[in-house]
């Protein structure tokens, strides 16, 4: 049985939207305090829609893949879409995660929701905030 779903393999080997928007409207940076995985999202938002988005990430393969996956889900979507991403949906979008990879779903959900929250409050993260994964 493969360790990773085809979706995870795809995003891990062909990451989409990696990098950072220097003129981003909002920035969210979340880390898992236990294993040190981190995801940074930067996005430009036009009329409450994510017009452009980039990711940077450090961590296990699944973390990097989920970060890439998030950008494809959120690109062109209403910013509120980020607020609605629960860990279960991240796991589903990822094509399933093994038990030892599920902390990545929580991290992905946390950084997406943080992006929406930061946008609403007009703030940005300079350092990684911690998720409860």
């Amino acid at each position, binding site marked *: 049985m493969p360790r990773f779903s085809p979706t995870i*393999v*795809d995003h*891990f*080997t*062909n*990451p*989409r*939207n*990696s*990098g*950072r*928007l*220097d*003129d*981003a409207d909002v*920035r969210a*940076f979340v880390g*898992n305090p*236990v*294993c*040190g995985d*981190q*995801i*940074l999202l*930067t996005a430009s938002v036009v009329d409450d829609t994510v017009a452009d988005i*980039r*990711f*940077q*990430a*450090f*961590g*296990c*393969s699944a973390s*990097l893949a989920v970060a890439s996956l998030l950008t494809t889900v959120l690109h062109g979507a209403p910013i509120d879409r980020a607020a609605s991403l629960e860990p279960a949906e991240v796991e589903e979008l990822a094509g399933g995660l093994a*038990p*030892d990879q599920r*902390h990545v779903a929580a991290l992905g959900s946390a950084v997406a929701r943080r992006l929406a929250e930061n946008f609403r409050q007009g703030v*940005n993260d*300079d*350092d*990684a905030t911690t998720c409860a*994964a």
Partner: protein
Amino acid sequence: MTTRPPVPPEDPGAALVYLDHAATTPLCGPAEAAIQRGLGLYGNPSSRHGAGLAAHDALAEAREQVAVLLGGTPAEVVFTGGGSEAINLALQGTFAERGWRGHLVTTAIEHSAVLECAAALNRRGVAVTVLAPEPSGHVDPARVAAALRPDTVLVSVMHANNETGAIQPVAEITDLAHAAGALVHVDAVQTAGKLPVDELAADLLSVSAHKFGGPKGVGALRVADGLVIESLIHGGGQESGRRAGTENLPGVLGMAGAAAVAVDALRNDLARAARRRLRKRLIDGLGVLDDILLTTTDPVMPETVSVSFGGVRADTLADVLDMRGICVSTGSACHAGQDSPSHVLTAMGISLEQAKATVRFSFGHGTTADHVDLAVEATVAAVEQLRDVRPFMAASGGN
């Protein structure tokens, strides 16, 4: 802000570049043939009839061949169910024979088979001293000398470390221990077939077949003539009463087949020189990257290259390489969000971050310069990619 070109997708048809021979090796041809022969020898080596005698003779022949690799006489070779069992028999068998009393000296860089065994002995009342290595990954014999006590029964040290390849001064340590009246066990699981072990003066020497081209699930312990150890497995008195149970004839014959190949390879100076050239080729190739660290220094096995890549998670790097058909090993792993850094690297004083960034490349008989070049190319690309995507807030400032 960049989006790097996509990494080529996994190609299931791509040739596998296997650089994890320190974990296990492919079965060599003579070993496979010997296993097939063993499968046909269905008689019990302890039986009196012809079928049993055929098996008995094959077992004796295999014991002679393994004794050539290990040194000592065939009677000193005890076949086991692998390296861990050989190590457990050496340590537990020694102290069981002595009423679980006395003192064991070992090191913090031993394989878990030794360290967990030492912990079990300690729970039974055996005093245990675990020595720290030097930052180079080598054990200083002076530390061993200082740890020896009048009640020291056994010193257990590995011939070379499985993670770093650091070759330990086992001859010097053996002399020191013997001078103090202590026995010596050398864990040669990682070196048998790669370094000569036949002249080591250790009283106990453990090996595992699958590390030198043999099958998994079979190993051996060389027990010096006259040394009495307690069997861990009681039963029919096989292996001269030191390991009961009908012998695993296919496995033992496979081990002997691999041992014959290994003995020939050890005499091949050209092959040894080629292995050293491969090591230099790998290290030179990776040298285009900045912020890398070789975790050990000479003396080191040419087959094992342990490298820390700053700013990179080793398990993620290993996954990238795996998806490109290149098999390597890591010094740590993240399981269920829990870090488990290498006890070897941390004992050497390497930082947690560096330990988590350490990858082991290990060569074997089939490794070629092309394999090394492919590994270098893929590793350099992967490290650059992973570093590029890593968030560094301070580097770009706020926006």
